[in-house]
């Protein structure tokens, strides 16, 4: 197992380096000059040159890339062109918000879809199962931002469980911050719960038709014994992979949902930075999202390795 984790860790670092290169290269190739953008009509050849040197854009590509890569490890991504402050301090708060939002949504997805999937599989053909299918279709097809408005209306406007638009910073009131994030997290979670529980249900039903389930039955297991001791451990693996993929998607979907709930997260910063060609900020955000996704898939791999002896080899 130790060797397996080590292998995955090496793989993670290589992927990170490749991703950082691609990200840096893309913003190198994107049309538009941040210097001209910043100076606008006031630009003179002297001021252009001065700013180019100040931002280090006169240095060759590889030199600048090297600075960017070392920045990953020292968490120093340079200075924002627009705000004049360090990118790290600009991003830190936003990243924390998005991280909490995603983690909360994943916790909700896991906590609801796994018991739901098991229940529906166990009572397959029953009333809950018959209701499950159409409800699932609806939940899957409504995009999170519509759900976000719906949730704001129901829980915020009618039930007064939270104040719409009343974002609480984690610096002032941590539990208030978490409480506020629960509602956007639910909006993010609902379509994924539908997908996840359906996947788990069909995997449980498939696995329980396999030969080893018959063998387990023939040893005198009852339905619960069969389900929890044999089937679930096999059936849950695709669901774990899927939750890992969802987790990556949550960070991106979160960018949209934070607009609906007026949360000052990564999304607003990302959009404004792209408009002003604030490349240090954009690069750092994209890299951070990529890194989070990689870490999540690393964790998924570890869980897989723990559950399935065959992947450890």
């Amino acid at each position, binding site marked *: 197992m130790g060797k397996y984790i080590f292998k995955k860790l090496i793989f993670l670092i290589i992927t990170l380096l490749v991703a950082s290169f691609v990200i840096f290269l893309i913003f190198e190739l994107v049309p538009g000059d941040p210097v001209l953008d910043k100076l606008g009509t006031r630009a003179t050849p002297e001021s252009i040159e001065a700013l180019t040197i100040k931002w280090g854009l006169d240095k060759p590509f590889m030199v600048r890339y090297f600075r960017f890569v070392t920045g990953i490890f020292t968490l120093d991504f340079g200075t924002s062109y627009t705000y004049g402050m360090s990118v790290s301090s600009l991003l830190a708060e936003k990243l924390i918000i998005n991280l909490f939002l995603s983690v909360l949504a994943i916790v909700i997805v896991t906590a609801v879809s796994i018991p739901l999937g098991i229940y529906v599989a166990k009572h397959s053909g029953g009333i809950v199962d018959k209701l499950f299918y159409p409800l699932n279709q609806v939940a899957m097809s409504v995009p999170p931002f519509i759900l976000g408005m719906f949730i704001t209306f129901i829980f915020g406007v009618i039930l007064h469980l939270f104040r719409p638009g009343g974002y609480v910073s984690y610096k002032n009131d941590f539990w208030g911050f978490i409480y506020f994030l629960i509602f956007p997290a639910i909006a993010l979670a609902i379509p994924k719960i539908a997908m996840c529980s359906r996947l788990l249900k069909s995997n449980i039903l498939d696995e329980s038709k*396999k*030969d*080893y389930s*018959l*063998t*387990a*039955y*023939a*040893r*005198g*297991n*009852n339905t619960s*014994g069969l389900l929890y*001791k*044999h089937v679930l*451990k*096999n059936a849950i693996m695709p669901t774990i992979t899927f939750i890992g993929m969802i987790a990556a998607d949550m960070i991106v979907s979160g960018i949209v949902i934070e607009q609906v709930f007026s949360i000052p997260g990564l999304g607003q910063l990302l959009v404004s930075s792209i408009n002003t060609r604030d490349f240090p900020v954009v690069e750092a955000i994209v890299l951070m999202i990529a890194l989070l996704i990689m870490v999540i898939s690393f964790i998924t791999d570890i869980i897989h390795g723990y*559950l*399935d*002896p*065959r992947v450890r080899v």
Partner: protein
Amino acid sequence: MLTVKDLKIEFFDHELPEVAVEDVDFVLEDGDILGIVGESGSGKSMTAMAIAGLLNRKDLQKSGNIMLDDVDLLNSSRATLRSIQGKEIGIVFQDPLNSMNPVLRVGYQVEEAMRIRRKELNLCKEDMKKAAIETLASVGFDDPERIYRSYPHELSGGQRQRAQIAAALIMKPKLLICDEPTTALDVTVQKTIIDLLKKLNEETGTGILFISHDLGVVKALCKKVIVMRNGLVVEEGTVDEIFGNPKEEYTRQLIY
């Protein structure tokens, strides 16, 4: 010990009912080895499944009796069957790879029939492990401790099948049902399995119901043989009778 009487199994999963097994009668005495042969679709596996109590689909109808001593396996409740499965009847299936759970250790699967009855038998972990290791040793493993800790994918086909036999035998059942246990194995491994079953039968007196389409294997192992075709028993007798002087044309075709 095992008496099958007027067994009939019908399927209703298509528009017309389909008879899988009809008019099957036979007796398996204590400690005997009975072979059932026939081509695929002859109803031999269905008979085995009925005896093992594994036919609980809703779209089929069963009639007749399957008496294991004084319990009617065909008409018992699921709970009664559960108390017999694994304890008095062990079953070994054809495909040794797929019939083991890939994510559980071999040891866990071998001792499972015991683990399920752990409370009533008042056993601790060490007792079960000891029993599993002993059973693994009895099916011919030189290093049962290592096999106990292994996962199914780490064993060869023949080793897996022996582990399956060990799992079926841990509770020292009266009856061992083998549903084509050698079909997925190569010839040399087949022979070791046959020898093992013979040895276990002599040592423990476990009755064996051996289902196969391979007459060579049946001839080497069984004392009595039943020949099935299209759900019906076409011929039965001792191995010498069936192989020496087959009465039915179908049996002759199977032999040659």
